[in-house]
Each structure stands twice: as structure tokens, then as C-alpha cells.
């Protein structure tokens, strides 16, 4: 369960990214957040693991404030929250398995992991995570030798290695071609279901939001302007979220 209470974010340049967000996401829900670039989607999900620190309000994960947590307590909370990124954010020169093992760094023996030594159980978990995203054979390949879709799967595996209760996905398919996008979204959804992981996904594309979401949250100008089921999110609603008409010139549906 994730709770946002009057969350406000102002960036150092004075830009108000979030203007008093209130939101409650129950355990296991697959939520897609839609909106234009700059609407506050990325900022919103980064307040969940405190990569972005609100100036006011509170974000709670299973009752514990992430916003107020510091030091070791914050790192412990983060270790239970997986995150995947638009640009995958892998260490390209490292092997796949080393990238996945990085997911174990949050709760691990400091000295041993600095020396590159991991417990047998951690290594097994890393291999199992790769198995679950369908690329077990890539474990000892360098990350930059993989295709975009495979790199994002490594990103998902790294998050899975954290055994997360929450998964944050910031535009996870924006750098991928449409068929790959769908297979990555299917993987995310399946894993979310199987493990009961509460998942927050930022997406640009309407069709994909409707197809995969349990719930759609629409943002515009740092505020929530829609919150409902995919059925309720009609074209009219999307036009309101994006503040313009859906036409061929500004097609925001994305190809299937």
C-alpha cells in the first residue's frame, strides 16, 4: 500500500512539479500513470523511493514514511522498492549477472559486496530473476551486447533481485519498438500478478495504458486530473488529460 498525503515538489529552479497530490494505491494494484512530458509523472514515482524529496506532504509505504526516512532506514525502505528506467540504467561494461546482483546491494554485507563476493543464495536469486524475464542464457554477456528489449529485461531482473513489494517503472518502454514494448509490458504485468507486487508505471501511450492497467491515473501540470478504471478512461477523458484533441497529427495512442 502506497499513500500520498498532500505531496508537493518544487525543483531548485522554482518549478512546481507536484501540487498537493493525494493518492492511495492498495497492495498488488497495477497502476498506469499517463500525461504529457512535464506533467509530473516521473517526479511522482520518484517520491515513492525518495529519489525526489517533497518540500511538503508525506509518502508512506506500508505505513512507514519514506519522505521522513534518512540514512540506513531510507536505504532499507528502498531495498524493498524495485525501479526500472526508460534508459535501462545498466552498467554497460559489466556483465548481466553483475548488473542483476546490484539489486542485492541494498541489504547485503558491506565489506563482502564491495569485494564482489555474494552469498550463494543471492547468486541463485539473480539467476532465477533472469529466468523469470526469459533470458537466463545471457547471464555472463556484457550488458551493452544486448538488444534494448533484453536490456530492459535485465533492468526488471535487477529489480526482482530485490524481492520488492513495490515496483516503479519510469517510461519503461519509451525507448523500445512497439512489439518489444508489449512483450516487456506483459512481463511486468505477469510478474506483478504472480508476486503480488504493487506496480506504478509511467506511460505515454493510451492504448497500452488501457490494455495493461488495473487503474489509470491521469496527470496534468503537477495535479491528478483523472483517476479511474481503463473502461472509464475514454478518448474524451484522455483529451482532457492531455489538454488537446486526439487526432492523427498528434497521435498519442502509439502503434500496436
Amino acid at each position: 500500500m502506497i499513500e500520498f498525503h498532500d505531496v508537493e515538489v518544487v525543483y531548485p529552479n522554482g518549478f512546481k512539479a507536484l501540487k498537493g497530490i493525494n493518492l492511495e494505491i492498495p497492495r498488488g494494484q497495477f497502476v498506469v500513470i499517463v500525461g504529457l512530458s512535464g506533467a509530473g509523472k516521473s517526479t511522482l514515482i520518484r517520491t515513492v523511493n525518495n529519489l525526489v524529496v517533497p518540500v511538503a506532504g508525506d509518502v508512506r509505504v506500508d505505513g512507514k514514511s519514506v519522505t521522513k526516512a534518512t540514512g540506513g532506514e531510507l536505504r532499507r525502505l528502498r531495498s524493498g522498492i524495485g525501479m526500472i528506467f526508460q534508459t535501462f540504467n545498466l552498467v554497460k561494461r559489466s556483465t548481466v549477472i553483475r548488473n542483476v546482483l546490484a539489486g542485492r546491494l541494498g541489504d547485503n554485507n558491506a565489506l563482502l559486496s564491495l569485494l564482489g563476493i555474494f552469498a550463494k543464495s543471492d547468486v541463485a536469486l539473480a539467476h532465477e530473476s533472469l529466468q523469470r524475464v526469459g533470458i537466463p542464457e545471457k547471464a555472463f554477456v556484457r550488458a551493452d551486447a544486448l538488444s534494448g528489449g533484453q536490456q530492459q529485461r535485465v533492468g526488471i531482473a535487477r529489480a526482482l533481485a530485490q524481492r520488492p513489494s513495490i515496483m516503479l517503472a519510469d517510461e519503461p518502454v519509451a525507448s523500445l519498438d512497439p512489439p518489444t514494448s508489449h512483450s516487456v509490458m506483459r512481463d511486468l504485468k505477469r510478474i506483478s500478478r504472480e508476486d503480488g507486487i504493487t506496480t506504478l508505471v509511467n506511460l505515454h501511450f493510451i492504448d497500452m495504458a488501457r490494455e495493461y492497467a488495473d487503474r489509470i491515473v491521469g496527470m496534468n501540470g503537477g495535479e491528478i486530473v483523472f483517476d479511474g478504471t481503463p473502461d472509464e478512461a475514454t478518448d474524451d477523458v484522455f483529451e482532457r488529460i492531455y489538454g488537446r484533441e486526439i487526432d492523427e497529427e498528434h497521435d498519442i495512442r502509439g502503434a500496436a
Partner: protein
Amino acid sequence: MGQPDAAPAIAGRLRTIGTAAIFLALLWVAGRQTDFSFVDLWTGANDFFGFFLRLNPDWRALSQIWAPLLETLQIAYLGTVFGTLLAAPLIFLASFNTTANAPVMWIARTILTLIRSIPDLLYAAILAPILSIGPLPGVVALTIFTMAVLAKLASETVEAVDPGPLEALRATGAGRNRMIVYSVLPQIGATMTSYILYVFEINVRASTVLGLVGAGGLGQLLVTYLNFFDYEGIAVLIIVIFAVVLLIDAASVYIRTRLL
């Protein structure tokens, strides 16, 4: 359309003229103060080449050169290794994306700037009487020099790494040290090795002259030869230094191109 652009164009031209004027004025003042003269340079050049023509290498000097040559290389090697080890923590403290906090970063940067402001030969000259004449002040001088130069070069590399993997590791709950080991080191490894080799090259060159101020190596032999007007020996020494520096440069360039 032309009117609004005219003012900036004139301002730009004035700036160019001003820069050129300052440049020429500095050139003139510097030339006057140092009594620079092309006539002297011309006659001096003749003497310079004449000196080389008079150099008549006496290869028997080689037997005296090997030991200090080895010492020179060892001074450079030790200085590079110790300097690198000392630089390691400073590199990350001086980089905005891996530092502990802002005050620590500024302290680290200030220390590095202060150290770098003194040239290595001066360190050696100061240290030689303190640590007694010999290779030790040379090693210490090059250690300090390596630390400052490497930390500066490397922290610029650290600050230029892809921030994505750093953010990803922060999101997993990893602490600062683990973020450095798992996301920064793999990104800077090759560049760092290349920089260390480059600094070693500089150190070999530097350590050939450190002996002039009593810090061991070939320079000390050079001073002896100069004092005894032993031009046959100096000739051999210059050829040896030339060959060794060239050899190490070539090896280092080869390794660095293979790395990157």
C-alpha cells in the same frame, strides 16, 4: 530585421579587438621584461647546435648510467603507485556525484588545488634537505604530484559518468561506497588505467631531472658530468634518456589505445 542585430554585432567585434589588444600588450610587456631578443636567439641557436656537434658520446659511460637509470624508473614507478593509492579516496570526495556532502567536496577540491599549485621540482628541492639527498625525496615529490594530477583528471571523469546507473543503484538502497564500486568504477576503469599510464610517463620524464636538486636518479649523474665538463658522458646520458622516454611513451600509447 538588421537593426536589432547590429548592437550585439558591434559588441562582439569590440570584444574581439579588446582581446587581441590585451594579448599583444602582454606579449610586448613579457618580451621587454625578459629581454627577449631574436638576435640573441639566433646566435644562441648556433651555439646550441654547436654544442651538440661537439658532443662525442663515449659509450664507456654506459656502465655508470645503468644503476641511476634503474633508480630513475623506480622513483617514477613508486611515485605513481603511492600517488594513485592516495588519490583514490580524494577522487570520489572531490566529485559532485560521489562526494559525501558539499563541504567535504570543497575541502577535497581545495586541498588538491593547493597541492597542484606547487611544481614537482620545487617539492623535490624542499624535500631533499629534509629527507636527505637521494631517491626518497624524489619518490615523495612524485607521489604528491601524481596524487594531485590524477585526482584532478579522474574526478572530471567521474563527474562525466552516465548518471543512470548511479540513480538505479541509489534506488536499490545501496550506500555511497557500493554505488561507487558497482556503477562508477566499471565506467571509469579503462580511462583511469590510461591516465595512470600517462602520469607514469610524465613521472619518468620528471624523475630524470629531479636529481638536479638532489632527489636521486639520472639527474644526479647529470650534475656530476656537468660539473666535470664531461661532455662525452653527457652525450651518452642524453641519448639514453631520449631512448628510454621514447620507449616508455610508445609502450604507454600502445597500451592506452588497446584499452579505449
